[in-house]
């Protein structure tokens, strides 16, 4: 679905349903926002976000799920938690971002401008298969699937000779216990 990112934010589609949903799921009340902007001032990635933390809180107040689920910030937030620790009202913005990302994922809304979602899926695929991950196979499969064939070609030999790449896939012995967690939570898409 195309989203018009230049559509102005207006209070006229005020809708409290999302606000209540966030309050229950994230244990955080956006009504307490003082609009001081400390969250965005501290944000590690504010300079590349389409919506900075303060605007994200505003979008929740406006009930604008559409924007929240399509924004780049869902995927490129580094979860450094500076925003929540600086917030004088303890609004848990990382938790709001996690919640909206998971909701978008359940509805099949893909990240539009990054491959980060693909990386998460490949990593969890390895956890499901082996119970543990090692960086080398994960990096290779990600670079192949995202068609960045030569991305780490210069780095790999340097790391190999330092013994940093473990070519063997580590495994949990009782793997059925781990697979059970995935079977009971079937939302992950196979890639």
């Amino acid at each position, binding site marked *: 679905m195309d989203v018009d990112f230049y559509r102005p934010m207006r209070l006229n589609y005020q809708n409290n349903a999302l606000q209540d949903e966030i309050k229950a799921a994230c244990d955080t009340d956006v009504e307490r926002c003082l609009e001081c902007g400390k969250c965005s001032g501290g944000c*590690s*990635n504010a300079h*590349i976000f389409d919506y900075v933390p303060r605007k994200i809180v505003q979008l929740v107040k406006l009930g604008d799920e559409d924007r929240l689920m399509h924004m780049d910030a869902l995927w*490129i937030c*580094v*979860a*450094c*938690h*500076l925003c*929540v*620790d600086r917030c004088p009202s*303890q609004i*848990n913005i*990382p938790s709001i971002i*996690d919640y909206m*990302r*998971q909701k978008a*994922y359940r509805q099949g809304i893909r990240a539009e401008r*990054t*491959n*980060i*979602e*693909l*990386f*998460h*899926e490949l*990593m*969890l695929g390895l*956890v499901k298969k082996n*119970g*543990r*991950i*090692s*960086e*080398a196979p*994960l*990096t290779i499969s*990600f670079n192949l699937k995202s068609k960045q064939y030569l*991305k*780490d070609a210069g*780095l790999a030999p*340097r*790391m190999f000779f*330092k*013994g*940093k*790449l*473990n070519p063997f896939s*580590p495994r*949990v*012995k*009782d793997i059925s*216990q781990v697979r*059970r*967690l*995935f079977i*009971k*939570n079937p*939302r*992950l898409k196979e890639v």
Partner: protein
Amino acid sequence: MDVAYYPGCSLHALAHEYDLSTRLVCERLGINLQEVPDWNCCGATAAHSLDHSLNVALSARNLQLVDYIKMKEVMTPCSGCFSRLKSGVTELQKVSVREEAEATTGNSLVSATDVKVYHLLQLLTEKVDHEKIEELLVKPLQGLKLAAYYGCLITRPKAVVQFDDPEQPTSMDRLLQAVGAETVKWSHKAECCGGGFAISQTDIVVDLGGQVLEAARQAGASAIVVACPMCQANLDTRQRAIEAERARNYDMPIIYFTQLLGLALGYSPKQVGMNRLLTSPNRLLKSMSA
């Protein structure tokens, strides 16, 4: 002191030297580590990005295994794992979340919610007397000017972690000072390195990691000391890309704090895996012995 040990995936591959030096330092300080049997990946950061219930379940199995070997405390040297296990306990203390995770894992999780989760830095700060470290000191780290780098997840979010100051932490500085090193005052000790985006969105790591390297250089540090395998990997493996981006040569060794503690406690550079770092710390180590 007996404590359960959760190394996490990185310490068995990319960050093998962190595992080596952690085990050596703990042994010397009288901390008996019992590795959690058959532990699984904590899921960071993929699981909590896509599926909350799966994320809690992955932590729940690990916490249940700690409880299974009758331990009440678990330590991990990885900030990502620490964050997952610690918030796992917090989540599982909610009855509805716990009941869902019990149905998923097929095990009772009542006593697993009493497990106390420590980051290694926190364990060495809160449970080990620094005077004891000074007594065991063999080779003081004199002449080293270090930037202690904590990153995000050791001290944040403060409501969950409850350790040190969220933005101006001092625990690692004090440890390094206890073994004779000098630590610099700098702006980026708890800023983000780009975390889990090393592979998936490398430009973010080059950007944020570059700011950390530059801040350490401006503060006059000759090495950055880390307590997280992701911080180490980002700042070390992406250092050449950062240098190209910023047109500046940093040549900044990124060293685990346990490697330096290990040296100070009498182990050799080889024993603590100094040879495994991409940016060579050799010049720095020579300046120390001089």
